[in-house]
C-alpha cells in the first residue's frame, strides 16, 4: 500500500517533488537544508537510498558547494557581507568585531549553539554597505561599535523565547 503524505519523511516528500527531474540530487539537498539548516548525516544516507546515488557522490556535491552545511549552524546565522562595496566600507572590521565578541572564527558556531558566523558575498544591498544579515533581518550601514548591541538584542530575543516556552 502506498504511504499517505503524513507517513512520508521530509526527504521522501522532497524526492517526490522533484521526481520528474532527471537529476534531483541538488534540489533535494536544497530542500533538506532549508528545513533543517544543514544536511544531517542520516539525511545523506536516506537520500542515497531513495535516489539511488552513491553516498560518495552526495558528499562530493555537498562539499563542493559552499552553500551546503554539514553541521547545524545554530539559532542565529550571522552573515557579514564581504562583497566589494562592503569590503570598501570596512566589512573586515565587522567580521573581526563579531569574531571577538562571540569568540569564534568565521565558519564556526558558538558552544551554546546560539550563533553561527559566516562571511558571504554580495547580499544585494550594496547601497547600504556595510551590510550584515542575521537570519531574516538585514542591518545596513552597521558600525563595529554597534556589534555588541546587536548581539545583545538577539540574546535577549532567545531568552524571552525560552522563558515563553517554559511558562
Amino acid at each position, binding site marked *: 500500500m502506498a504511504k499517505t503524505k503524513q507517513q512520508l519523511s521530509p526527504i521522501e516528500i522532497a524526492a517526490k517533488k522533484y521526481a520528474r527531474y532527471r537529476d534531483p540530487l*541538488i534540489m533535494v539537498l536544497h530542500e533538506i537544508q532549508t528545513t533543517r539548516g544543514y544536511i544531517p548525516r542520516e539525511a545523506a544516507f536516506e537520500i542515497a537510498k531513495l535516489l539511488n546515488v552513491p553516498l560518495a557522490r552526495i558528499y562530493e556535491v555537498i562539499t563542493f558547494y559552499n*552553500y551546503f552545511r554539514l553541521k547545524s549552524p545554530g539559532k542565529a546565522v550571522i552573515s557579514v557581507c564581504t562583497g*566589494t562595496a562592503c569590503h570598501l566600507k570596512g566589512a573586515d572590521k565587522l567580521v573581526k568585531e563579531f569574531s571577538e565578541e562571540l569568540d569564534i572564527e568565521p565558519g564556526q558556531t558558538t558552544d551554546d549553539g546560539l550563533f553561527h558566523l559566516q562571511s*558571504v*558575498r*554580495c547580499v544585494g544591498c*550594496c*547601497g547600504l554597505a556595510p551590510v550584515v544579515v542575521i537570519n531574516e533581518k538585514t542591518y545596513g550601514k552597521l558600525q563595529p561599535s554597534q556589534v555588541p548591541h546587536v548581539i545583545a538584542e538577539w540574546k535577549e530575543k532567545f531568552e524571552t523565547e525560552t522563558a515563553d516556552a517554559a511558562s
Partner: protein
Amino acid sequence: MPPVNIEKIKNDEIKRQNDFCCRIFVCASTGCISSQSMEAIDALEEAVKSHDLENEIEIVPTGCMGLCARGPLVRVEVAGQKPVLYETVDPMFARLVVSEHIRPALAKSVKDYAFKLPDFLKNRTVPLDIDFFAQQQKVVLANAGDIDPESIEAYIARDGYKALEKILLNMSPEQIIEQIEKSGLRGRGGGGFPVAKKWTFARQSQAEYKYVICNGDEGDPGAYMDRSILEADPHAVLEGVLIAAYATGAQEGIFYIRAEYPLAIERMKKAIRQAKRNKLLGKNILGTEFSFDCQIRLGAGAFVCGEETALIASIEGRRGTPRPRPPYPSVKGVWDMPTCLNNVETLANVPSILRNGGDWFAQWGTGSSKGTKVFALTGKVINSGLIEIPMGLSLREVVEKIGGGSSTAKEIKAVQTGGPSGGVIKREDLDLPVCYDRFQQAGSIMGSGGMIVMDQDDSMVDIASFYLGFTVDESCGKCAPCRIGGKQLLDLLEKISQGKGTKKDIESIKLLCEAMRSASLCGLGQTAPNPVVSTLTYFENEYLEKINSEVCK
C-alpha cells in the same frame, strides 16, 4: 480551449488601474525591504483604510527604483498631478503622506491643482528631474518601479507578451534572429558574445530536444543587476526565454538562480505559474504549434558555476567544474543536447527588441556596443544604486552626474568594472565611453555590470588582493595554473601588503599573471589576474610605495 486574449487582459487591467485616482508605488526589492519597506506598505495600507480611501487609492509594491541607498522609496501619483518621490519612508512618515499629501490632494479634485506640499513632507522628496534619473535610459528596467512584478496583468498592461504574440503569429525564427542581429545585442553576462550568432549556432544544431538556459548565478561579489531584474520584472525574462526558445527550436527552459536570492526565485516561480495558468507556457502556446515548459534550478554558492559549462554540470547534479570548449553548449549542452545559454539581462532585452525592432535598440550606443546597460553603481559615490544607461555615455557622466560625484571629501581615484575578472579605470580616463571594446583597450572589461567608485583612501594593492582572494577561494581546483598560480600570486601580494615585498616580487607577479592567463582552463583562471595586472599598470607606484616602506599604511 481558445488561446488567451492578450489585448483583452491589457485593456481590463488598464481600466482597473484607471479606476484609482491615486496610486502609491513602494519599492519592494531586496534593498528596500531591508530598509523596512514592508513596514511602510503596512502603514500605508492602514492609513488608507482608516481614511476610508480604499476605492480611491491603490498601493503597488514594485521592483527597484534605483536609489537603493535612500530607501524605502515611495512614489505617489495622484491623477492629473505631478508624481512625487519620497525617500527613507518609515511607517510614521508613510501615514503622514496619506493624511497630509494624498488626502488633501484628492479632496481638491480640480484637474491640474498643483498641490503644495508642506515643508516637512517636501524635505523628504527626491526631485524626479535630477541627473540621476534624467541621464538614464530604461529599456530593461522600463517596468522596474512602475509595476507589481507579481502580477502578470500588470506586465501585460505594459505590452508584455506582445512580442511573443507577434513572433509566434507572424515571424519565422530566421526573422527573429535577423532583428536581434540588427539590434547589435551582445551578451550581458560578461563575455559580450553577439546574441544573434549564439542563437544561430543553437538553431543550426540538429537534435530532437533543445534547451534554453537563463544564467541567474550572478557571480560578481558586489553587484546585483540580475537579481534586481528578476525581482522587478520576472515576466520580461520569461518572455525573453520563450522567444529564444522559439528562435532556436528549444522545448524546455531552465532558470539557474543563486539560492542566495530567495525573493528572485519566489517571483520567478510565481511568474512561471501565472504564465502557465494563462497558457503562455505549456502545450500549443497561443494556439500555435509551439510548446514549451520551464523549471527552476538553484545555484549553491559556487562562483565558478556562473561559467556556462560548470553551470551545466551543476544542473546535471554534479560538482560544478568547467570542461574545455568546444564543444560549445549551443552544440552540446545539458544532457548533451544543444543549449542556448544567456544571461538574465540579455534575455530581458529581447521582448522590447522584438516589439520595437532591432533598429530601435541600435539607436543607442557606439559602433560595437548597442543598446543600454544596467550597472550597480556603488562605492564612494553619493547616489549609489541601480542604474541603466545608454551605451556610449562617458564614465565621467555616470560617476559625476548620475552618481553625483564622490561621497567623501576625497577625490575619486578610479572606477572598477568587471568585478574579479575586470580592472580599474583611472580618474584621468573617465572620459572613456561605456563600450565593450574601449573598456577592454583600457585594460578592464564591461563585465556584468558592477561599477565601483574608489577614492584616494582606497589602496589599489588591497583591491587587487581582495579580488584575487575571492577568485582563489572560488577556484574549482581542476587545473594547476589557476589552483597553484592563484595561490602563489596571492601570497606575493600579501607579502607586498605587509611591507615585506621586493622589486623582484613584482617581476614574479607579472610572470605568474601571464602564465595563469594563457594556461588556465576556464575564464575564472584566465581572467583572475586582470585586477592585478590592471592596478599594476596604472598604479605601480602604490606597489612600490609598499615595497619601500617598512610599515604598511
